[in-house]
């Protein structure tokens, strides 16, 4: 480490993330306020009901599990490292992570194949959908690449990526540990920022409106126009 990382690393790991998050917050909030009608998962199950299952179900279960793993590594790195101190547990975590990542990839490929093969589905596919697909493929493939060729990520993530991410959060980015990373890891990180920055312009916003309150609200909904708050 000579203390002065390459300017490209500086740009990609210290400037780009702030641009991405700034866009993310600005546009999602503004879109929610001004164009709440446009917040939709834009489901196309109605137009094609069979392939939909094989694409959407593995993709969603896979990506949710993988994302949960990343968030845990970010929030509780010590506990993850402690868990991994027993090799068997480390193998278990790595293999299950890989399985979920492959599940995501399979689902993603099925979803893309469905969009290409069904003329009705092609009709409702926009440019932003294709950008999302490209970004997601890069993200998942680079993630699987890292898992295969730079193994034990669940441990080194906690030791390198987590401090970097926290430094970003503290508005004092320290990118030395990231600058030394292999290319696949760098691609994975930069592409994640691209995904976050482009997120508010796509159908991905449906993630933000996942209907948790449904699980505890009363089944029937009545709205009164005369009684405020009733």
């Amino acid at each position, binding site marked *: 480490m000579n203390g002065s990382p390459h300017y490209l690393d500086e740009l990609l790991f210290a400037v780009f993330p702030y641009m991405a998050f700034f866009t993310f917050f600005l546009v999602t909030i503004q*879109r929610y306020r*001004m*164009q*709440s*009608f*446009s*917040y*939709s*998962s*834009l*489901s*196309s*199950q*109605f*137009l*094609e*009901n069979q392939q*939909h*299952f094989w694409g*959407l*179900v593995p*993709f*969603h*279960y896979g990506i949710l599990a993988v994302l949960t793993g990343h968030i845990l590594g970010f929030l509780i790195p010590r506990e993850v490292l402690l868990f991994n101190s027993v090799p068997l547990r480390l193998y278990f975590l790595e293999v299950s992570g890989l399985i979920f990542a492959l599940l995501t990839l399979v689902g993603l490929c099925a979803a893309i194949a469905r969009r290409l093969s069904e*003329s*009705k589905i*092609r*009709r*409702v596919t*926009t440019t*932003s959908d294709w950008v999302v697909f490209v970004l997601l493929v890069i993200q998942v493939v680079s993630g699987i690449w890292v898992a295969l060729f730079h193994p034990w990520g669940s441990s080194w993530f906690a030791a390198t990526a987590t401090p970097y991410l926290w430094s970003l959060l503290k508005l004092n980015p320290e990118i030395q540990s990231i600058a030394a990373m292999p290319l696949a890891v760098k691609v994975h990180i930069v592409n994640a920022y691209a995904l976050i920055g482009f997120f508010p*312009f*796509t*159908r991905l916003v*449906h993630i933000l*409106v996942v*209907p948790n*309150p*449904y*699980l505890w*609200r009363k*089944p*029937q*909904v*009545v*709205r*009164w*126009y*005369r*009684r*405020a708050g*009733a």
Partner: protein
Amino acid sequence: MNVRSQISMVFHLDKCIGCHTCSIACKNIWTDRKGTEYMWWNNVETKPGTGYPTQWENQDKYSGGWETHNGDLRLKSTGKGKIVFNIFHNPHQPSMDDYYEPWTYDYQELFNAPEGPDQPTARPVSMVTGELINIQSGPNWDDDLGGSKVYAENDPNLAGLSDEQRAQLSAVERLVFFYFPRICNHCLNPACVAACPSGALYKRGEDGIVLLDQKRCRAWRSCVAACPYKKVFYNWFTGKSEKCILCFPRIETGQAPACFHSCVGRIRYLGVLLYDADRIEEAAKRPPEELVEAQRSIILDPFDPVVIAEARANGVHESVIESAQKSPVYQFVKIWKIALPPHIEYGTLPMLFYVPPMSPVMATKEGNTIDHTSEDLFHDIDESRVPMKFLANLFGAGHEGKVRYALRKQKAVRWYRRAVTVGDVPMSTAEHMLREADSTVEEAEAIYRLTSLCTFDDRFVIPPSHREEAIQMLESPEEHRQSAGFGFLSGPRRGI
């Protein structure tokens, strides 16, 4: 007691001529937009037939409506427990193939085709993909029993009919069918509302109209599967569900909904019913054979001083109570008991009621002299060409009693009027029949008048909406600045 008012409906099937004017009126106003071409918020089906979407009554296929499980009501499709696993792919969601792929015709070809030996034709073009398509089926493909081998014979309501009865329905020269116009039932216990994870669907407290908040719908699609009547539709273009709004902008300005207004046969009635909202769940849980009565029991008497007092206390406007007292729906449903809810076994407590249709008697009985003994006066009710069991499957959760009662009373009214106007039946016989049918001369006159001589104002008793009291109007006027109509800044688009 928690008294609420509901704008309710009666469709008199004996008067429906199957002209589809209602469907066209609705389509022209509400569903001529992109993504809604395939939707028919109002449609008219031929019964027996498979309807729209195909076999919508087959809940083994669609899993619509409610079921009781260990004494609790729960959705058959995706309630709270199942939605977590089914949100990515709803296993009961119908697809466009269950409805039909909307199409137009390449009319330009008629003008632009190069000169040739054949007449040019306008080939069908899909309104989804814009490509030429080979039309397989469409809405009302089974109109007037068209293709009955494919459609009518697969009507789910034929369950429980004997082979003889089935054969009788389609026997040559004895063919029989009737029309079944359908809109959203604006149910008391709507499955669509209970299924919506976003809380976008809601029932209006003041008049019970079930609406879908377009800005809160996120296309989780649960409503489409949950509604057993398949009257919530998914707009494939905007990614939002849509449904019949009972023309609330018309109702709020004192006009009847478009399908009611345009009804040629004057089969449609609209009026307020007061009901006890605290007893909805209790009523919906009753076993199928008690459901018709259970729903009637929570519809309250608008003349009862206790009900009036409770209604006032609950904020029901004086003018709404008055229109509840004049409601034609109350007469049909609660006083005369000749209007019945469709498929009450689905548990949603629909607030659209049907007067079951009379049908010609069996041809084998033709030429028989009328036997005036009391046992046989109503014989042709049970020997009508449409088997009682079929009507019972539609309007009585499979139980014939309530349907038979409604048909007997209708028949008695006919004989009474025949005695009055034609005079070939002694009045004593007519009165005897009325007694047998649990009716009176006064009631028969009233039924006759509201059925045959009804004016616009008799059929549609629309309560004032009192929008001047709505809190909406007290909100910031900035809220809808630069917007027109119903509050959108821009036309409905797909995504951003």
